């Protein structure tokens, strides 16, 4: 028997209800990726994928860390396009508590959250801004890509999160970073001109439900709009502080268009930045959502869906400052 469209619809809503989602979330997932993929996304969020680690060349060579972990019964698998990323296929030890972990030989970091630092592609001599930086997965990755040369200025508004950031930077052997305990919306008051800026903006986290099930109930559309306005302020500030011709990578772990395409769209209206194409897995940013008509340039951004990439849900945009 062929299923009718409305019964299929009900089916997806039923699955969403069964897994504890708010109805508005299912509605927008269906609009963005269709019913079939929404089902795949919902089931993926209930799965337990392999952990992923990033090997830290600031502390030890990749081969040395692999060898030490393999001796302990940890089986690692390469990740295409991410030479420092390894999937933990099997482990007979708690991977987040080994002496190697405590020595900063690796960091537990989701696969897709390794892309933003790589896409920013910082050089050894650069001054790089990393705004809203805690807990520091991307900051330590930037330092690693810069081989502890140049300078990273990492800002974080919460002093408690600064403490965690400091701890992660120390453990990973990062030397080239300054942690600023300040609101990243005021960075321009420092009168610095960055070569590159990474903004992993605070977001509603709908891309990481697999790790935080409470997100299914914890955020409303109003919350999403509040994140949107904060993200616009943060990105405006990031653009202000980067040099002409400098690059900015904006990302969130949210799937909500208001926190992603609509933020970038606002920036494009001001004509201070242009989007840059990225060689990256994922889907192009969407240009139609609800009543919004979004700038077609947005297709240069990337949406990384959990069920399609086997990692956290992410949105990534790369821009160059032109004015």
């Amino acid at each position, binding site marked *: 028997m062929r299923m009718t469209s409305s019964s299929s619809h009900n089916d997806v809503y039923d699955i969403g209800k069964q897994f504890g989602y708010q109805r508005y979330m299912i509605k927008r997932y269906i609009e963005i990726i269709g019913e079939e993929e929404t089902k795949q996304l919902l089931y993926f969020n209930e799965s337990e994928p392999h952990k992923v680690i990033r090997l830290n060349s600031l502390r030890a060579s990749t081969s040395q860390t692999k060898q*030490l972990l393999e001796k302990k019964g940890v089986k690692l698998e390469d990740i295409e396009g991410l030479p420092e990323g390894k999937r933990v296929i099997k482990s007979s030890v708690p991977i*987040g*508590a080994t*002496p*190697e972990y*405590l*020595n900063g030989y690796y960091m537990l970091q989701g696969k897709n959250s390794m892309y933003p630092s790589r896409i920013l592609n910082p050089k050894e001599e650069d*001054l790089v801004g990393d705004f809203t930086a805690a807990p520091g997965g991307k900051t330590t990755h930037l330092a690693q890509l810069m081989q*502890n*040369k*140049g*300078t990273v*200025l990492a800002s*974080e508004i919460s*002093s408690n999160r*600064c*403490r*965690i*950031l*400091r*701890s992660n*930077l*120390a*453990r990973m*052997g990062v*030397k*080239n*970073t*300054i*942690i*600023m*305990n*300040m609101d990243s919306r005021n960075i321009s008051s*420092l*009168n*610095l001109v960055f070569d590159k800026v990474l903004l992993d903006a605070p977001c509603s986290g709908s891309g990481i439900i697999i790790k935080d099930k409470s997100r299914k109930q914890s955020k409303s559309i109003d919350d999403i709009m509040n994140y949107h306005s904060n993200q616009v302020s943060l990105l405006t500030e990031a653009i202000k502080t980067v040099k002409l011709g400098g690059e900015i990578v904006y990302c969130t772990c949210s799937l909500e268009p208001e926190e992603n395409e609509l933020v970038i769209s606002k920036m494009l209206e001001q004509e201070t930045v242009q989007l840059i194409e990225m060689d990256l897995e994922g889907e192009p940013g969407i240009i139609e959502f609800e009543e919004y008509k979004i700038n077609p340039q947005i297709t240069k951004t990337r949406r990384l869906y959990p069920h399609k990439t086997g990692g956290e849900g992410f949105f990534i945009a790369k821009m160059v400052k032109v004015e």
Partner: protein
Amino acid sequence: MIEKQLSFRRASPEEEKNVYRFIENQFGSLSLNALEKQILWIREGKLKEVYAVPQKVSELLDKVEHDVYAAGTPLGTFSDTEFLLEIEGAALILPLTKRILHVKTNQFLYGKPIFITNIKNIESDFKKDDFLIITGENNLHYGIGRAKIDSSELDCSKPSCVLISEYKRKPMDRGWYLREEN
């Protein structure tokens, strides 16, 4: 309540001298090479935290002294005028000293003391109250501790005798990073 703004400033010549003296006295003059091309900075607070900062980063710090939380490598802390090396300071010095204690168990990483029976080997003699850098399996760094007895007493002491006890003022073992996460 307005939180007191902590200041982040360059170490004074006196403070620098205290840091260098401690490192040289405890770990030998070669160990000072770990601080080559590093500028010492101080974060004022309940304890004065000392950071080793590369030259280039230091130049930027000169421009942004307000709101700085940390920079470079956290080396150790001052309590009054006494400087004490901490976890990352010890890790910097590890390749440049023989004041190393190799242990057989991971217990130190959980904030537990090191007993004589836990010793795998020592690389040089030491006196009571000397600082020792502690390593474990595969020569991985475990932390830093203060000897409660002379190395000359090791053979005649009971195996259950404590060589390094947990330190009250600041965590000195790398397991602290795990405890800090929670």
